[in-house]
């Protein structure tokens, strides 16, 4: 039986406390106010006092408003019907389409049994050489893009979404500017990818609590598709906003903060989301790409720091390009041995030479004289930056490897590259 209560005894931040009985932890309630109906979730029970976080915010809630407990946790509709649709963080359509209630599934399902996971082995091609060649993205990987405000991380995510060879793309936007939301929608639409996309959008002006739901709801839908054999790519932007929402609620609930005001369970909270990335044995997979903005470009800030410990590598997006140093795909070794025989050679050699180029740049800026070798490196570096690193480049992995050989042969003799003779004989352009 669903019971209603009208005795709200406390309203603080986005959390209300109501006197009620027999309420289950993390159950959902409906609050009817003058402004309409909002959902809320139980986050603490203390005797008769039940605290709920209100998805639509508490503005305008009266102490006498009606709270009706639904007796189940947060659920979301799943299935093919969702494709091409746009929802907010609590699953309400934003595209004037019908409300969906088919195949409801609980969000925040339990963790996958580690003994049922498989070792990832399939590359996801993106058409971006800095990813495909140097830090390959692997199916079921979880990878954040570390960046700062103003960098084109959303453009990068959208590009990967358009080009990645996956069945379904789920975009979870948290604290997005409204323009960014429109950008995602229009870009995916323009490339005809909208029909295999699902959006869960929380914009900066929406209530904080809804932001917290976006990753859960996106991943619950993704998991459902993956279990039915689909390869799903989930884009989450921006996870720093998610962490900030966690902080806001934690402070409202008077929790003891740990680092810079973030709650002590930030690591576990982020891990619970990122660890949803999985390759199911005999079914589909979930790959997670997230944007994490680093406040003050500081990688030791709690959000990027905790993220780095959880994810399988990271891409640094700096000055509009994916920085080759620091960027890392921990799973690349699983796939780059199987693409083409020269993949690893090109990857290692080009990065080593690029490192020497950076050293030469430093020497140059300090006014040291440039040797013949330095001149070669300078030429190489310029070619590498414009033909490989630039995000404008959009070529297949094989073309990128060929291009790599071309750049090397344009700048160096075979011996100078330090590549093994057998590989040189097979691949060096004549």
């Amino acid at each position, binding site marked *: 039986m669903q019971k209603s209560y009208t005795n709200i005894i406390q309203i603080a931040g986005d959390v209300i406390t109501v006197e009620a009985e027999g309420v289950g932890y993390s159950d959902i309630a409906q609050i009817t106010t003058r402004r309409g109906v909002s959902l809320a979730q139980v986050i603490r*029970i203390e005797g008769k006092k039940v605290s709920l976080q209100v998805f639509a915010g508490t503005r305008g809630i009266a102490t006498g408003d009606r709270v009706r407990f639904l007796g189940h946790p947060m659920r979301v509709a799943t299935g093919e019907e969702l494709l091409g649709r746009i929802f907010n963080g609590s699953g309400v359509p934003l595209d004037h389409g019908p409300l969906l209630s088919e195949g409801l599934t609980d969000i925040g399902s*339990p*963790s996958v049994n580690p003994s049922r996971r498989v070792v990832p082995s399939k590359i996801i091609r993106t058409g971006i050489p800095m990813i495909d060649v140097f830090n390959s993205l692997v199916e079921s990987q979880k990878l954040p893009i570390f960046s700062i405000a103003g960098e084109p991380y959303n453009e990068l995510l959208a590009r990967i979404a358009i080009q990645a060879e996956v069945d379904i793309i789920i975009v979870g936007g948290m604290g997005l500017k409204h323009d960014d939301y429109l950008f995602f929608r229009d870009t995916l639409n323009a490339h005809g990818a909208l029909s295999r996309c699902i959006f869960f959008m929380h914009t900066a002006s929406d209530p904080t609590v809804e932001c917290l739901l976006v990753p859960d709801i996106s991943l619950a839908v993704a998991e459902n598709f993956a279990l039915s054999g689909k390869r799903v790519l989930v884009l989450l932007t921006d996870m720093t906003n998610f962490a900030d929402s966690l902080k806001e609620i934690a402070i409202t609930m008077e929790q003891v903060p740990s680092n810079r005001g973030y709650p002590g369970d930030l*690591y576990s909270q982020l891990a619970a989301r990122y660890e949803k990335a999985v390759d199911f044995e005999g079914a589909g997979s979930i790959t997670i790409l997230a944007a994490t903005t680093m406040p003050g470009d500081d990688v030791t800030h709690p959000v990027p720091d905790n993220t780095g410990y959880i994810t399988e590598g990271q891409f640094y997006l700096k000055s509009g390009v994916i920085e080759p140093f620091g960027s890392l795909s921990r799973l690349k070794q699983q796939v780059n041995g199987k693409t083409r025989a020269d993949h690893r050679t090109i990857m290692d050699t080009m990065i080593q030479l690029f490192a020497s180029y950076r050293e030469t740049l430093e020497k140059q800026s300090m006014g040291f004289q440039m040797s013949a070798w330095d001149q070669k490196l300078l030429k190489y570096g310029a070619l590498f930056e414009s033909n490989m690193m630039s995000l404008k480049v959009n070529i297949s992995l094989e073309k990128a490897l060929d291009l790599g050989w071309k750049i090397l042969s344009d700048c160096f003799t075979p011996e100078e590259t330090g590549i093994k003779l057998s590989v040189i004989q097979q691949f060096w352009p004549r």
Partner: protein
Amino acid sequence: MENKRTGQVIKVNANMVTAQVAGQIVQNEVAYIVCGQERLKAEVIRVRGDQAEMQVYESTQGLRTGDTVEFTGELLSVELGPGLLGQIFDGLQNPLPALAEKCGFFLKRGVYLEALPDEAQWDFTPLVKPGDKVMAGSWLGFVPEKIFRHYIMAPFALSGTLEVESISPAGKYNLKQPVARLRDSSGSLHEVCLQQLWPVKIPIFAYAEKLRPMEPLVTKMRLIDSLFPVNRGGTYCTPGPFGAGKTVLQQLISRHAEVDIVIIAACGERAGEVVETLKTFPGLTDPRTKKPLIDRTIIICNTSSMPVAARESSVYTAVTIAEYYRQMGLNVLLLADSTSRWAQAMREMSGRLEEIPGEEAFPAYLESRIASFYERAGVVRLRSGQTGSVTIGGAVSPAGGNFEEPVTQATLKVVGAFHGLSRERSDARKYPAIDPLISWSKYEGFVKSENREKLHALLRRGNEISQMMKVIGEEGTSLKDYIEYLKSEFFDFVYLQQNAFDPVDEATTKERQVYLLDFIGGILKTDYDLQDKASALHFFQSLRQLMRTWNSASYGSPEFKKNEEQISTLLESKGLKKEK
């Protein structure tokens, strides 16, 4: 038997639940919360009046006030007996593969399976006869488990001297069939099965004495064994920022370390890494026993998205199993990755208990908990005269890679060796990324300490010169200093760094390390006939190239000898003989 004590849920705050209890409450006892069809395991962590505050080892979704709580009176315990080797458990000792068979892809809450399968029959051979005097931990008989004799021991909880009343003849028994009966001094009888229970948070004390760890544990990592050794029964920690290679290092040590049994506690880390160990170990051969590596390995796995409270107990589960095998006279290595996640689990709980926070909101008892965990390592002399050891290596993941934080600092106080990983070394692709300038060890390894001192001095001097060169440039550095710098770089490159992808170079035996170090020592103390910096650089670069090839040749092979000759030729070409 006392009546089953029950209580009612009155508060739910994430994974902390408070219950109102009518009767007595035992601190740290296990309780089950009945939630519909499910029974959720919990542990009492604080008692206030008639209220028991419990941490729940599962998601608390759907718990209501008034739900029944059943108290067991038992502390959180693990099952100890034959069949543990090769297994993979979660933090509460649930066997994960069996759980997967039962529940599919997901870890369904409230499902607890027996750690050791009941139906297994074990071939028991008695070692005592009626009338023999025994004590807790005495070997009563054994069963074969993989390559070991798994001794069946008198329960660790018994006290004083007991007399064997009866012992079963050799034959097949399952885990719960009694195989012996012991009579204590007061005359009461105790039945002994192949399996016994032990509470995880209490160390096993059934031994004669604890000894000083004196014997080196060879990990086959040159940097560790030669410069920062760890002894059997010792403790060490490896703190490092993310991406510095903590996990790769631990994985390689778990493969190559010269111990009998390795226990891997994957505590709050990525599931993918555990999967890699899981899927690769059965196919890898232990070079010492020629058996699959998994046969000597036990994995305790509570990855980051699994319930936090169980993460806290997983390191205790692991160390208890390690102590159990130590009691059989075996050398056990426990690798915990990462102890920071364990500390964070304590912090989460402490926050929910609304305890007064210490530094970075960690609880005030953080240090003592870390200390008492590492103190469970050690070499012990058993009452039978044999020795067994537990060595603990803990990975630490300091926030922001900053070693000043509380977990790293508390750990450094209690460990015997510190292997600090640095971002600079890992960015420069130097593997292992252990920074020799900040690391230390209190153990005496197989390299004489005066030789170790010389190498440390060389590395420090090399670093000083390299710092100086950054300011005054190569031109301003004297040739003597420059050669000193090249020597230190050379030593770092050909000895301290190892190629983790090279089947030979990834693990170096003690014998080879001694030989190689002696050879390099000769090079380092020799003055060479080098006229200028360019020729010095060229000389050391060619030497470096040859040494690298030498490192990839298997020890004692014709190729090994050929490479050695090439190097000697190059050394002699520079005129000056080695100083003896």
